[in-house]
Every structure is written in C-alpha cells, then in structure tokens.
C-alpha cells in the first residue's frame, strides 16, 4: 500500500479491477441490444467463484482455508508484475495473510494483532470483500441475490466503480446503485465504497503538496505539482483519457491546509476545583478564506491520467 494521504481513495488496484469488470461495456451503452462484453464474462466468473468462497467453512481460530481463497480467482489482473504486486498487497495488507517462501498462503488470524495493515481492527476482510463482490455484480446485472447465472442477456449491465474510504472504526463494504433510465440496459451504475480502518500513515492535513522545510519535498503527498495527473485547480473534467478512451476522474475540494488548535497541558498547576479540561484538538484551516480544488494523482489514491488497462491472459 502506498502512502494514501487522502481519506477517499481509488488508486491503481481498484482502477484495474474496474477495468477487469467493465471492459467493453461501452458496446452495451451504445447499443441497447448488445448482450455480451469481456467484462460480463469475468463478472460471471467472479460471481461463481466468490459464491464458492463464502460457501467455504471458516474456522474461528484457523481462519479461512487457503484452498479456494478469493485471491485464487483466475480472473485477477494477469500481467505478471501487476498481478503479483496486487496479490501481495491484498493478501498481506488487506486480508492479513502471510505469504510463505514457497508462495503459498498462511491464512490463520494472528492473535491480538490487527488484520493486515488495518490499525486497531481484527476482522475477516476476505469474507466481507467476497460478499461485496457478489452483491455488486448481482446488482449490476439486475439479478436477485443467489439467482443462477442468466442463460440469456442479463436484465441490465451497469458499470461498477470502486472507492475506499479510510479511517473508519471497522471494515465495511457499501454497495450503492443508481438507475438513470429503465429503458436502457446500461443506463445506471454501481458504486462500491469500502469503508476501511486507517493504516499506519497519516492522512495529510493539506490536499496539495506543501514544502514546509523548503527542501522541495512534501513527505505526505509525493507528487509533482500539476503534472497532468495531479492537478491544482483543474478546469476541465475530461470524459476521455490521454489515449482517447472513456475515462473517469475525482476531485477533492477543501481548505488548502489545516492545523490543530487548543491542545492544552492539563497538568498545569491550578487551584482547588480549577481543572483544565482535556480537549481533543479542533481541526481548523490555516486560512479561513482559502479553498482549493485538487485532482489527486493515482500514486496518492487518485485516478491515473491514462486509463490503466486490463491485460488479457
């Protein structure tokens, strides 16, 4: 996992997952009678596989079985480097598994330790995510929960988008949907929001790089200013990427920088009954008047300027 200095993040892994499940959906958007697209085949594959994942027995002490882990779904990104990087990140950091020297998984929960990188949290992230994938795909295709795979065209084919929102007390997956028209099969979308605990890196107090030490480096947002991917004050929300492919985007609008106020020393000597109450800090803007709009780079959890591509097996 990278530094992830923002509360709301997408990043490379989720972009690739979207590309895996949405690839070719433009055909249905453009032609309502079109039935299949590459992403649909993978949704069917993932849906069947994840149903198997949640049907597995799970031991409260030994945890999930390595056999049939959702990580073994053959449709995950297949580019060797990306695939292995994502595999390692999800296995170790999201699910809290260890990868043995021979590449196999140790899935046993660690006693009294956080699950993966999630601070202060123990949970079965794999099982939650497998359920989220099942629900999201079913909703996107207009299937009732548990329905068998459609033999003909699914009632609808909505694109699926993913984000994760960190620093929540426990791990949740939110499946949301919007229908834009009942007359067209692809006129709608599913947006999945993973609400996750925080990981061991602070969220930046400022959405733009600020060079406090005058060393031309911002330790929290390691990106170049206005480099085409990260942008301050972006103007145009482009519908396509640099290669002319349909694309998406994300902007964050907030104060330029924040500070913490009112952190007092409660041990300052005082008279009888005159206590200094403990005060959690108030977060306040450095400049009350200044609001910025920022397009975070993928490195910081934003969206690539150029659409990442699913690489077919």
């Amino acid at each position, binding site marked *: 996992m990278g530094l992830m200095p923002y509360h709301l993040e997408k990043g490379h892994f989720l972009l690739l997952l979207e590309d895996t499940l949405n690839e070719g959906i433009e055909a249905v958007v453009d032609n309502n009678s079109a039935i299949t697209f590459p992403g649909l085949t993978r949704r069917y594959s993932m849906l069947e596989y994840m149903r198997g994942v949640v049907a597995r027995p799970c031991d409260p002490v030994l945890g999930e079985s390595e056999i049939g882990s959702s990580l073994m779904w053959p449709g995950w990104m297949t580019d060797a480097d990306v695939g292995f990087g994502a595999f390692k990140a999800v296995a170790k950091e999201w699910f809290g598994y260890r990868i043995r020297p021979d590449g196999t998984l140790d899935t046993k929960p660690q006693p009294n330790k956080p699950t993966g990188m999630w601070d202060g949290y123990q949970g079965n992230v794999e099982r939650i995510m497998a359920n989220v994938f099942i629900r999201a795909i079913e909703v996107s295709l207009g299937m009732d929960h548990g329905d068998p795979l459609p033999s003909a065209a699914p009632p609808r084919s909505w694109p699926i988008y993913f984000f994760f929102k960190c620093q929540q007390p426990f791990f949740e997956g939110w499946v949301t949907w919007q229908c834009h028209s009942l007359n067209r099969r692809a006129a709608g979308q599913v947006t999945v929001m993973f609400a996750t605990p925080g990981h061991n890196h602070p969220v930046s107090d400022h959405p733009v790089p600020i060079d406090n030490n005058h060393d031309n480096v911002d330790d929290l947002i390691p990106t170049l200013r206005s480099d085409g991917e990260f942008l301050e004050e972006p103007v145009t929300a482009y519908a396509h990427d640099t290669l002319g492919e349909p694309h998406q985007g994300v902007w964050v609008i907030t104060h330029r920088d924040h500070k913490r106020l009112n952190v007092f020393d409660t041990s300052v000597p005082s008279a*009888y009954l005159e206590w200094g109450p403990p005060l959690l800090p108030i977060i306040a803007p450095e400049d009350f008047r200044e609001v910025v709009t920022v397009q975070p780079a993928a490195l910081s959890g934003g969206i690539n300027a150029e659409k990442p591509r699913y690489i077919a097996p």
Partner: protein
Amino acid sequence: MTEKERSFDLGTASEAVQKDIAGVLGAFLDGKFEREDIGTSTWRSDDSEFFAIRWRFVGKHVGFINGFGHTRIAPTQNNVSVSGLTLVQNRKPGQVVTDLDEVLKSGTLVFHRFIDWLAVFAQIGVLHLGRPMPIDDIRFIPPQRSLSRLPGYNDEHPDT
C-alpha cells in the same frame, strides 16, 4: 494544637485531593475515590511542601460532560476507571488545619494533576468512533492481560 486542629500532612493532602476530584469528576461520574498507597511521598522544595497522591476514581458515567474534548457528551452509562497522580503543593508549610474546606478556599494549596485522560476517552468511546458507544463494545487490553483483561478474542486459544 487543639483537639480539632491537625497539621497539614499526607493524610490531609489525600482528603484535599478526594474533594478536588469529587467536585469535578463527581459531577458526571457516580463513583468512588480510592487512594492507592505509594508509601511516604512527601518532600520539601523551596518554600513549599509537596505530597504525591496516587488515586483511582471508579464509577459510572451518568452526567453530561461539558467542554470535554470540545463537545457536550451525554451520559453513556459506561463504567469508567480514572487513574491519576496529584501533587498537592502546600505553599504555607506548617499550617494548622482546623477546617479543610477553609484551607482549600484560602488558596494556599495548588494542585498538579496528571490524569490518564486517554483511557477515559477510550472508555467513554469518544476516541475511537468519535461518538459514545456502550462499554460492552469496547475491548480493553491492558499490558498485563493475565491480571485484568476481560475475556475476548483468542483467549480460549492463548497459544495460537
């Protein structure tokens, strides 16, 4: 010194701390003050006497807390254990105490309070979620788990 008079000593300092705590924590915790013995903990420095009182106040959160973390926290009914160390600085060494309340009003005593507020916030639930939650939902894991830890995840399988 008459029968009602006494010198200001460690025992008197402890009573002063108890009143100081009851007057503030007692406003929102229905609880009990306990002094924890750390031996003879008095010393003299410049023109003052110091008395160190280690204490614990255990009770139930039954009242509104104002100005606590900038919020007004409604009663959670959580059980809360507050621990702290108060140094009582007597700026009039040798003073005779007839009525402790009069001494407290006289301004000759100064309190240096070192309190584990982090644990209080955690027990009330304002730290983790930013909103109160019942104590049953809080897994509190002190360092010496075998002595005081509540039963929880993995306790049945300590070797796993």
